[in-house]
């Protein structure tokens, strides 16, 4: 453990304080865009950390997590569309614009999607698992493209962010603080999860499935449960993103989005608690810096990613530690 056990909570608290102070400071500096950038980092951080549950702790390389991200977003969008038009979904589910309804609904539906996709995909492993998760995500992508009622290719505009009791969600800063609060709660839960017996089993499965089976643990069920939890987290992030952008589109499920989430995880460090959040920050800052220089910013991202994968062994965190002269 290179950073002392005591240093870690302090560092986390310092980051949290900075994030709380960010909106007024950004406004005072005349850079309100920083706030929305931070909101995107938080949201993608949640999605990437969810992916990290299967990818880092479970060793299952899911290349289709954008599917759950997109499903979460579309749940918010579709419920809003039915709330606005007044006619219920499938004839009996009323629409809603209440955050306290739509977020749990998004988590539930994306969890169900993860249950179905996971139950099928986990029948295989290794390289097939990668291809299959990618293919299922692509299938959902085509599904949403074909849903002309909900915008099809163009996506679904959500005229107003969901309402929450006592909060003015029309204010972008309030939305930011909602994202921050949810992110804090999410990472607190994730911390509990990472230190749980369940996560230990998961990490054991990554190291040797046979050994875990030999001591009597049903590998498939544990992996499926992890996959569902991971899908739910990604769905939550998608629902927040739909609220933040007031827009849900098939782009949220595009396979490059799955790739981006994986890039965030590896940039920050696979199998670490806050790594994906750091990775999301690095990726989004990198993207906006490179995009301000050149329209071909993906070239830069590609080269940096290649370098990170080939040479750093453990992402930006590990690289920083090694540069500081310590072995990760």
């Amino acid at each position: 453990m290179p950073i002392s056990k005591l240093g870690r909570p302090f560092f986390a608290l310092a980051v949290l304080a900075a994030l709380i102070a960010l909106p007024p400071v950004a406004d005072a500096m005349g850079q309100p865009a920083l706030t929305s950038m931070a909101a995107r980092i938080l949201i993608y951080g949640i999605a990437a950390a969810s992916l990290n549950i299967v990818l880092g702790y479970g060793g299952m390389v899911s290349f289709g997590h954008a599917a759950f991200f997109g499903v979460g977003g579309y749940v918010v969008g579709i419920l809003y569309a039915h709330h606005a038009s007044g006619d219920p979904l499938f004839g009996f589910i009323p629409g809603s614009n209440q955050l306290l309804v739509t977020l749990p609904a998004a988590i539930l539906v994306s969890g169900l999607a993860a249950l179905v996709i996971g139950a099928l995909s986990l029948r295989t492993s290794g390289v097939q698992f990668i291809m299959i998760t990618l293919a299922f995500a692509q299938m959902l992508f085509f599904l949403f493209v074909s849903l002309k009622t909900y915008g099809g290719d163009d996506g679904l505009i959500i005229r107003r962010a969901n309402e929450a009791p006592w909060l003015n969600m029309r204010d972008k800063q309030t939305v930011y603080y909602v994202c921050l609060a949810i992110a804090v709660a999410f990472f607190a839960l994730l911390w509990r999860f990472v230190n749980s017996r369940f996560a230990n089993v998961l990490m054991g499965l990554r190291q040797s499935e046979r050994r875990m089976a030999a001591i009597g643990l049903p590998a498939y069920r544990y992996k499926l449960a992890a996959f569902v939890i991971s899908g739910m987290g990604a769905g939550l992030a998608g629902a927040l993103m739909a609220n933040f952008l007031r827009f849900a589109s098939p782009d949220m499920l595009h396979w490059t989005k799955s790739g981006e989430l994986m890039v965030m995880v590896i940039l920050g460090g696979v199998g670490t608690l806050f790594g994906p959040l750091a990775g999301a920050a690095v990726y989004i800052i990198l993207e906006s810096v490179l995009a301000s220089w050149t329209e071909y910013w993906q070239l830069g991202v590609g080269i940096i990613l290649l370098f990170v994968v080939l040479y750093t062994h453990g992402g930006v965190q590990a690289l920083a530690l090694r540069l500081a002269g310590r072995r990760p």
Partner: protein
Amino acid sequence: MTLFLEQLLNGLQFGVMLFLMAAGLTLIFGIMGIINLAHGSIYMVGAYAGALVITETDSFLLGIPAALVVAAIVGILMEVTVIRRLYRRDHLDQVLATFAIILILNQAITILFGRQPLFAAMPAGLGGSIELLPGLIYPVYRLAIIVVGLSVAAGLYLLINRTRIGMLVRAGSTNRDMVRALGVDIRMLYTIVFGLGALLAGLAGLMAGPILAVQVGMGEQILITTFVVVVIGGVGSIKGAFYASLIIGVVDTLLRAYLPGLLRQFMVGSEADALGAGVSSMGIYLLMALVLLARPKGLFVADS
């Protein structure tokens, strides 16, 4: 009936294109244990090289070596600079590194050629159509693709089952370390196999030129369908890749051709078209799900 036969031929033509991609992908995975996302990028590079030379020189014949050589060179360069470092890494690193290659090649092509798609001219003499059966008129070029694809499949079969290289390939896919221990230069073999895969992808790209728009993103489109083929056929099995390619090609084409019409019997025209297009794009993935339920390792791999 003639319409159905025509669609069947279209499906076959799509199927052999998929096979050219899937054969390379599954060979590379079978021998080296590498999942290569950038395989689609090689297809794109081949298509661009072919389309460029064909447009500049007005000769399809010159386009053939251009596409094949450029694709093989790009593939070998890729193997030597990046892929070679990934053999001992886990799949995650392989996915991310090849994902990075996709980003780099896509942007490089955009910088070189812009965002406008290119179109390659049909080869002279293959532009027309012939009457295969009374009433069944079919473009010669598409027939040529089918013939080329099937001959490549036959050639690959001979290469793998009848030659020394093929023997090493088969041995390498069974037990890599043993082959190395017997004194075979396995690095060379890897480079050859990767180059061969790249060559096949380049050939697919070249042949796609005159019938599809040559544009950035074409590689990923076919790559994901190829993954479905490889999963259905069984990872590492060329025979499986062949049959699965034809199945997927035909199923996909027939769904696209007939589903909107079927749906129109029940619903409004425009909605039926949209839903039909969507569901027919999903069809092959549903087929994959069904295959997975019955045979998790793919149709043509013996369950262990």
